[in-house]
């Protein structure tokens, strides 16, 4: 009886991963990889929120979306290298500093 719901969640996950490719490229281009803690925190918050949503379906959608943002945060650094190598368009303009840049620079950007 879960055949439709399970497949729908699988397809949703597929779609949200595809969206991840899109926003990682855009975010690296316009903001820079040093903004990585923000999608990481956003993703973790979504996963945390999924624990407190009573409905299993909504909880699932939040969890899947959160996990995709956590992954995207770890992918920003590699995307910056791809842009350095000329595999992706590099932004010719200076990017804005993320809030808390001093602390962010003290932590090695996560990459898996």
């Amino acid at each position, binding site marked *: 009886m*879960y*055949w439709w*719901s*399970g*497949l729908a*969640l*699988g*397809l949703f*996950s*597929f779609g*949200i*991963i595809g969206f*991840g490719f899109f926003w990682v490229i855009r975010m690296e281009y316009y903001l*820079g*990889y*040093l903004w990585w803690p923000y999608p990481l925190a956003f993703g973790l918050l979504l*996963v945390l929120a*999924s*624990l*407190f*949503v*009573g*409905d*299993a*379906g*909504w*909880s*699932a*959608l*939040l*969890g*899947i979306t*959160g*996990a*995709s943002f*956590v*992954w995207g945060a770890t992918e920003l*650094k*590699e995307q*910056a*290298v*791809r*842009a*350095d*190598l*000329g*595999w992706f368009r*590099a*932004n*010719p*303009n*200076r*990017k*804005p*500093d993320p809030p808390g840049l001093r602390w962010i620079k003290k932590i090695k950007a996560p990459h*898996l």
Partner: protein
Amino acid sequence: MLQFAGFWMALATFLSIWWGHVGVRKLEARSGNILPPALLLIGGGLGLNVYAAVAPNLTIAGVCSIIGITLLWDAFELFRQQKRVQKGHAPANPNNPRHAAYLAAGGHATTADLLDREPLDGQAAQPVLRGRPRVGVHMDHSMGD
């Protein structure tokens, strides 16, 4: 009471993406022929989705389908990864006869992992380094910024 459905889906999604990146690279680098592993991934992906249809609860159904659909995409990624190796965007494994042939052909294939470096600068207008940087030489900041 806490609802753990989302947590298990999150774990399945994260691990699926992780394996889709890291595992597919390793599998492609070690396989002499990528067709058999691709067929295995397709079989596994279809099997998990069929099981999702009869799974006893939503969490198991969702986790199976998330992993199943990702495995189907991973089969496709094996072929894309093969192209990346041919282009030099992923390191060739000289011990793999298929990769050794790419290296011997004198194209763009290389054993260097060009992505294994730190970004030049997070915020500065980025210099674009077209072409292939020399193997083992780290790009220095004097090249642009």
